[in-house]
């Protein structure tokens, strides 16, 4: 287990380094004048600006200094979005909103998806199961921005004005964005839960537990679901990554001032330090979540956890 953790950690660090290098190389080596729409008077000013931001050095030197700054958690300074503000400040201002959005969305996906999946597995073949599979198929086929746009159209204006159309930080304004963001994860999670629980319900150990007289609830939740947890945990991490990236578009639809909208505006205005900084931050988050999810799912599966230790001790188990 320890070896596996070390190996995965190494892969994660390498991936983050790869993203950081790619970010610097792609943005710094792109031809084109980064100072084109920044006000300056003469060619001399360009040289001064280049020297100040280190853009006149050779590419490897730029990559090296960026990585060194990264080690000190310094992501640079914004050039166009808000001149002079540190990228760290921009992230600190906008990330909490995105984080809340993503967490609430995933929360409702888990709270709704897992129980519904279990229920559908128990009622396999009946009306509930059929309706469940239809809902999951429909919910999983539309991107989050399409769902968000449909909800906006149906519930925020025109005839039914149930929810506020523009985001204002209130609890009510979180409902629709979180629903739209969490629908796809919920459908995927529910489908996977149903498949895993169904597989466990057909095993011998569950049949013998039932023969011994365990209550239905203990059978399903205590045994079938418990054994289905490892693959579900492994699924949660990509879901979080998905929620983070999906939030870009949902923020656009509902005009939420989150990290996604900062990144999109930076891409539109070619503010390279912000683009690289936010990309590296999000990449670190996504890679970290994937790593955590992978390790958690392995730790939750005793066959994996104990199997490796057993092998390490000469297979005595």
């Amino acid at each position, binding site marked *: 287990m320890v070896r596996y953790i070390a190996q995965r950690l190494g*892969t*994660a660090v*390498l*991936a983050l380094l*790869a*993203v950081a290098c*790619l*970010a610097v190389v*792609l*943005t710094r*080596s*792109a*031809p*084109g004048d980064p100072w084109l729409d920044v006000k300056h008077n003469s060619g001399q000013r360009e040289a001064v600006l280049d020297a100040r931001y280190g853009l006149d050095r050779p590419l490897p030197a730029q990559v090296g200094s960026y990585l060194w700054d990264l080690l000190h958690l310094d992501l640079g300074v914004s050039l166009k979005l808000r001149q002079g503000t540190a990228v760290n400040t921009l992230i600190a201002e906008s990330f909490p909103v995105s984080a809340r959005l993503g967490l609430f969305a995933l929360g409702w996906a888990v709270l709704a998806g897992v129980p519904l999946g279990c229920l559908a597995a128990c009622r*396999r073949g009946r009306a509930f199961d059929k309706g469940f599979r239809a809902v999951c*198929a*429909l919910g*999983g*086929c*539309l*991107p989050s*921005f*399409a769902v968000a*746009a*449909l909800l*906006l*159209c149906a519930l925020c*204006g*025109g005839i039914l004005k149930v929810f506020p159309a523009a985001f204002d930080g209130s609890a009510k304004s979180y409902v629709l964005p979180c629903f739209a963001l969490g629908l796809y994860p919920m459908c995927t999670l529910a489908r996977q839960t*149903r*498949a895993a629980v*169904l*597989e466990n319900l057909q095993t011998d150990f569950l049949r013998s537990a039932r023969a011994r007289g365990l209550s239905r609830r203990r059978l399903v939740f205590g045994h079938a679901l418990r054994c289905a947890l490892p693959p579900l945990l492994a699924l949660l991490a990509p879901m979080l*990554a998905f929620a983070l*990236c*999906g939030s*870009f*578009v949902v923020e*656009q*639809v509902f005009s939420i001032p989150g990290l996604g909208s900062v*990144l*999109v505006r930076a*891409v*539109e205005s*070619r503010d*390279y330090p912000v*683009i*690289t900084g936010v*990309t590296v931050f*999000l*990449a670190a988050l*996504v*890679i970290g979540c*994937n*790593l955590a999810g992978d390790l958690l799912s392995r730790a939750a599966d005793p066959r994996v956890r104990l199997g490796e230790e057993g092998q390490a001790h000469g297979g005595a188990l």
Partner: protein
Amino acid sequence: MAEPFDFTPVPPEGRGAAQTLRTAPDGPWRRLRRDKSARLALGLLAALFLFAFLGPLVVPYGYDAFLRGAENLPPLGFGAEEEALRAAGEFVFPHLLGTDRFGRDALARLMAGTRVSLCVALAAGALVLTVGTTYGAVSGWRGGKTDLVLQRVAEVVASVPEVLVILLASTALGDLFQSFAQAHPESELARALLRVGPNLCAMLLTFAGLYWVSLSRVVRGEVLRLKETEYVTAARALGASGRRIVLRHLLPNCAGQIAVTVCLQIPTAIFLESFLSFLGVGVTAPMTSLGALIQEALGALYTYPYRLIFPTAVLGLLILSFQVLGDRLRDALDPRTAI
């Protein structure tokens, strides 16, 4: 009563009704053909293909033709000039889905958008297929140190978040394409590149560079499993080269698994492309795509809600049919996993 080990075949006339056993021929493709939802999904896909590629033969309007006087028409509406023509007795093809704020026919734009989404999805699928199959086959066939190194690289590649790389790449490629076009103004390649756009190229490059990992793992698993079979040993003994064995024997035997993985990867490509087009970093005007159409519809959401509903419906149907097809294909290949 026949002898115990009598292997002479019984002539057909000699068989009694009870001895004749007729079982329906079975196999993955037959199981797929019998499946109702798979047939429905295939039919839907065929209909969408026809709609996207043959529809323009029916609808006379171009997808980027600005029609003055016909702006913001409702479905089945006619503009001022068209009304005059109709009053004069001429047949004017109706705007079945209305027009947008520049007078462009919505149905023609929907067809164009579906075309782009389909082409991007299939191109991405083809790229993933090529890169993933080659990588997985080489890794599985060579084994040993090569396999170890290749799998570590694949793990690192799989950990990189794709959307962010696409955003980065499209920023860089945009400037690159512009400077290339300026340096070679008469080059066909430069014109073609500018038309496709840096964003789509960035997306396709990222697909080729990052999305192949799951397919390569599937192929590697299958190659490792089939490497130990007798026919491979026989082929090796007969002197067949590794390349011949892999291409001629192993890969055709994994065709089913490869088809399932690619089929389930295509909806991801469609999702990604529509997501990027919605953000404005996808297709470049005048090309349009389903995501871009949805983004345009957001501007006039409460006055013209139908502009949102049609592209959303087409997008949903497209993704749904690929997903259902992939699921049914997977179930047909291994009925034990069908739940």
